């Protein structure tokens, strides 16, 4: 009985682990898409509304994907902090948090990282160009993530259980 419970636990745990990895594969393209939408929104706010950055970031956070909203909110909070270190630092710290809390990787966020030194620092035309460039790059990354997802997601969904079963067979 004890053996059976142990075996089931092992298979269950490995299955869940596999599922998690599969979910991460599925989530990446979705988040990358959400980031593009957010940048589009930011671009509109800057270009048509000339909305100051803190206000624009808040708008983007409210309107966008709740999973990436904390990034924009934390950049805004760091920006408004008295004696804060400025946008470059706030943006960098925001990205670090985003990387920590989501499945996005450092490479996924590279197009965004470059924006830290640019946002708010020039006229509208220039801002729009840089935001468009970042969006294009994110699109490329998203495409890669989508391919990886179609290749790996289903595999990991089953692989976890299979590995668990194999482990049980070897152990007993």
């Amino acid at each position: 009985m004890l053996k059976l419970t142990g075996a089931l636990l092992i298979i269950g745990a490995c299955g869940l682990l596999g599922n998690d990895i599969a979910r991460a594969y599925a989530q990446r393209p979705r988040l990358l898409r959400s980031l593009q939408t957010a940048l589009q929104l930011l671009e509109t706010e800057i270009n048509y509304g000339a909305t100051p950055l803190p206000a624009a970031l808040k708008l983007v956070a409210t309107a966008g994907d709740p999973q990436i909203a904390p990034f924009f909110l934390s950049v805004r909070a760091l920006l408004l902090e008295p004696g804060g270190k400025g946008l470059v630092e706030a943006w960098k710290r925001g990205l670090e948090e985003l990387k920590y809390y989501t499945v996005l990787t450092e490479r996924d966020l590279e197009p965004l990282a470059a924006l830290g030194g640019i946002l708010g620092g020039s006229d509208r035309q220039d801002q729009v160009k840089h935001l468009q460039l970042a969006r294009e790059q994110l699109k490329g990354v998203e495409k890669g993530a989508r391919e990886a997802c179609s290749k790996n997601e289903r595999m990991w969904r089953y692989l976890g259980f299979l590995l668990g079963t194999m482990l049980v067979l070897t152990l007993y």
Partner: protein
Amino acid sequence: MDPLPLADRKTGPASPGPWQVLSFLAPPVRDILARLSPEAWSQLEEIRLRQNRPLMVNLSWGDTFVDPGGRPIPSAAGAYLVTAEDMKRTLELMSNCSIYSLEEELRQGFITLPGGHRVGLAGKAVLEGGRIRTLKYITGLNLRIARELPGVADKVMPYVINQREGNLYHTLIVSPPRGGKTTLLRDMVRQISWGIPSLGLPGRRVGLVDERSEIAGSYAGVPQKDLGPRTDILDGCPKAEGMMMLIRSMSPQVIATDELGREEDVFALEEALHAGVKLLTTVHGHNLADLRQRPILARILGRKIFERIVFLGFSLGVGTLEGVFDGQTYSAILAKPLR
């Protein structure tokens, strides 16, 4: 209703003092200037940041470099050098990280900060169709500290009020640059708006055209200075157009504006005159002869629009009242400097 005596009136938005500007400077510069002596702070007029060049402040007696310890020093050798990073951070703080939201301000070459402090900008102009579209590579900043000096107009008011009619004379204030004309104009507007019972002047509706956001120091359209209860402000509006707009829409009894000098201003002045509005305005200059040499001003003087011409100067320090002339006869009403 009896107007309150001058001393009891509130002086408008509580101004947190010149120290307020520190929060808009890059931290290294902020720390240095925070160490300036209180005496230097009380004399501080301008802070000048130029990229890769020594930090400089203008005190009331002249300019001086500042060393990393916050001490004014006469030579540039030991002074703190302003870095590119300092400029970038300062601009970020001044623009709320949003240079793009200040396009109109950049075109005009200055931004107004909360508190009414003005920042002049120098950099590379970006042209479009031969006109300035914006500034980039901003490498020079001049932060002018706005000070409110309630009561600074006390010495002038008796000369510019027609006590028999209980009204203002058409008044022109003439002063060399940095001679205190905007500060004087601001306090005159405030006093006229409140009314001066001791001189028989009831409170008047004042329309103020603040083309360069300098008089009211408006931030987001809200005046940061006390300009009295009966003052309407058109912020950032071209003078001539603004004067016409006010006459049409706000029925002012007095129109105040800064730095006359363009062709269309003359036309607007005449319109205001016909509308029965009293005029209060300023112009750069030193003396009557100087004004007469400038075509547009000569025309204005020739038409004898102004009834009082007030001269400011430096003979007894900034804001010295050098003389007051009758604009019709050019005879001196006050001939001796007064401070």
